[in-house]
C-alpha cells in the first residue's frame, strides 16, 4: 500500500502487528481435467458468438444489399474474423491460466477459494453460515469425471463455487460440509 507520509497522525493501532497482511493462496488445486472442461466450454461459447456474425457476413456477401456502404460489403468477412481473434484467448489461454489461479481449501472454519484468470476473486465462506451445499455435474463434467461444488449462504456475496473438482472429492466435501454446517449452525443469517 502506498502509505501517505504527509499525514501527521500518529502510528496506527494495526501497525502493532508485525508486517503487512496478505491472503495466502488456498492449499489445493482443482483437477487437471478442468482445463479440458473450460476449453470445451469456451469453445462452445466462442462458436455461439462467432456463428451469427459469420451468418450475417455470408448473407451480406451473398445478397450485396444496397443499404450498406460498399466498404462494409467488401470487407464484411473481417467481422467474423475479428470475433474469432477476440474469442481465441478464451479458448487457448484462459483455461490454463485459470488452472494456475483456481485453488480451494476447506479449513476448520472456512471454505476458502480463489478463482478467475485476468481478474481474480477470493471468497471466504464461514462453514457456520452455510445454508446449502450442492454438487452439480453437467454432461461435460460427467464425461470428465468432474463436479462443481456450490456453497450458499444467505447472501450472494457470501456464496462460493468450486468448479472442476474430482467428482468423488466434491461429494465427500459436500457431505462433510453439510454435516459440519449443521453442527456449527449460527442463528444469525
Amino acid at each position, binding site marked *: 500500500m502506498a502509505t501517505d507520509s504527509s499525514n501527521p497522525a500518529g502510528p*496506527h493501532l494495526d501497525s502493532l502487528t508485525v508486517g503487512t497482511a496478505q491472503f495466502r493462496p488456498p492449499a489445493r488445486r482443482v483437477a487437471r481435467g478442468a482445463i479440458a472442461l473450460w476449453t470445451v466450454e469456451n469453445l462452445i461459447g466462442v462458436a455461439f458468438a462467432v456463428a451469427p456474425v459469420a451468418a450475417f457476413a455470408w448473407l451480406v456477401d451473398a445478397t450485396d444489399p444496397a443499404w450498406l456502404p460498399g466498404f462494409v460489403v467488401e470487407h464484411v468477412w473481417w467481422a467474423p474474423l475479428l470475433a474469432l481473434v477476440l474469442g481465441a484467448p478464451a479458448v487457448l489461454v484462459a483455461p490454463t491460466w485459470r488452472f494456475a489461479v483456481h485453488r480451494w481449501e476447506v479449513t476448520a472454519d*472456512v471454505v476458502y477459494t480463489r478463482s478467475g484468470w485476468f481478474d481474480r476473486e477470493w471468497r471466504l465462506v464461514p462453514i457456520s453460515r452455510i445454508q446449502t451445499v450442492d454438487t452439480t455435474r453437467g454432461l461435460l463434467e460427467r464425461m470428465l469425471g468432474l463436479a462443481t461444488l456450490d456453497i450458499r449462504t444467505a447472501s450472494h*456475496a457470501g456464496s462460493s463455487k468450486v468448479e472442476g473438482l474430482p467428482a468423488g472429492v466434491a461429494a465427500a466435501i459436500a457431505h462433510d460440509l453439510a454435516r459440519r454446517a449443521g453442527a456449527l449452525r449460527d442463528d444469525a*443469517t
Partner: protein
Amino acid sequence: MTDDPQHPASETVAPQHLSPRVLAIHPLRSLRTFAIPLIGVVILGQGSSSSLVAAAVGVVFAVVIPLLRWVTFTYSIRDDRLQIHQGLVSRSTRTIPLDRVRGVDVSAPLLHRLFGLAVVHVEAAAGGEAQDEGTLDAVTAAEAERLRALMLRRRQATGDVQPAEPRTGPAYARLRRRWFLYAPLSATYLLAPLALLASVVGFAVEIAGQVNGVDEERARRIVEGVLGAPEVVVPVLAAFVVAVPAVSVLAFAVINWDFTLRGRDGSLVTERGLFTRRSVSLERRRIRGWELVEGLLERLAKAGRLRAVITGLAGEATRAQLLPLAPRSEILATAARAVAPFEAALTAHPPAARTRRLFRACLPWAVGAVVAWLVAPWPLAVAFLVLAALGVPLGLDRYRSLGHAREGARVAVRSGSLRRRQAVIEGRAVVGWTVKQTWFQRRVGLATLVVGVGAGRGGYSAIDMSEEGAAEFAGHVTPGWVEPLLVRAPRRGTAATDPPTVS
C-alpha cells in the same frame, strides 16, 4: 365479531371473520372502479332496458361478491400458526407458522380510516426463498394492533397481550414539517410531479381523441402551434419550474405526513401518510445494520435518508425506511438511538484509487468522443468531450466518497457520488468475504472487498482498498476465521503511518 375476542390473554385467536364494516367499504370501492363503465353503459345504452339490466348486474356484483367473500373468509391463530380460510367453491387454507413471520404491516387507506379499519399484511418466509404472504382486509384498528402484537411477540411468552397496546415505545424520530422542503432535492420526489404531468397529458390526449376525434395530424399541428408561440411557452415553462418543486413537496408531504419511528415489542415501527396511514414493523432481531443514502443534491444540503439493513424483507426500498429525508446530523443521531451508533471516521482509500476513479469516470466518454469525431457529426464529439470533462469532478468526488471503518463490532463502508451510500453492518452478521481484483487493480495494488451480509443488498463493497488493507480489515472484523488464512510479510518501505480519514 367483536374487538374484544373471547381469549384475550392467551396466544390464540378463535376462527373469526373480518370486520363486518368492510361490507360498507368494499362495495364503495368496487363502485368507484365500476362507476365510469356503468355510467357509460347506461348513457350509451340510452336507458334501454338491457343497459339498465347490465348496470343492475354490476351493482349486485359489487355488493354480493364482497358479501360472499366476507362470509367465507375466516382467520385464526392457534398452535403458533396463522390460518386463513377462504373461498366459496374451492376452499383454500393458508397456514403461516408464526416463527416464519418476518413482518406485520398495518395500513389504513382513507376509506378504511373513516370506518376505523386497517389492513393487516403478514409477510412470511416460505420454506424456500420465496415470500409467502397473508392479507387481512380489513379488521378494526384495535384488532390490527392486537394481531400485530400477537404475531411479533410470540417469542416472549408473556401470556399477557393487551388489545390495542398503547404506543409506549420511545419515539426515536419524528419528521419535522420543514424537512418537507428537502423533497425537491430528492430524485424520487422530483420525478413524481413529472410522472403525474405525463399521465395527465396522456389522459387529456386520450380524452380529446375520444371526444373530438382529434386525429394525429391535427394533434401534431396543435402541438406545433403551441410550441411556436413564445407567449404561451414561456409562462408554461415558468409555471412548470415553480410547480415541479411545489408538487414534489406536496407529494412528499402526502406520503410521509407525520412520519414517526418508534420502538415497540422488539420491533422498530414506522408510521406515515396523510390519507393512507401506513405502518411497517421491522423486527429488531432481523436488523443487521443501517444505511445512510445521500443523493448529490441532498448531500449539498447536508440531508439524506436512513434505511435499515434487514433480512428477508420484500419491497425493501420503501419499507426498510427509517427516516425518509432529514438533515444528516439528525439521521446519524436517529441511527445511533434506534439501531447502533457509529462515530468512527472513515479511512480514506489509497491515492491509486483516485486515479482509478478518474479513469473510470472519464475514459469511456473520451473514447466515445474520439470515435464520434471519426464517424459522426462534430456536435456529438463535443457532447462526449463535455461528459468526459464532467467525469473529472465526478471521479474526484467518487474517490472522496470511498472509505471504510471499524468501530467495536461494527463495520462501515461507503461509496458513490451521485448517490452516496454508507452502510454500517454488525460484524457478527458477516456471512462471507469476497476480495475482487481486476488486472488493473492488481497492477497498482488495489482490491475491492465485499462484505457479505444475509440482509439488505446482500453485499456491501469497499471499492479500491489497498490489497493489504482489505486483508487486514477482514482479519480484524472476523479474526476467528480470517486470521488463519493471512500471512504477514515483513514490512516494506517506510514505517506505516495512520491512513488519512475522510469526512
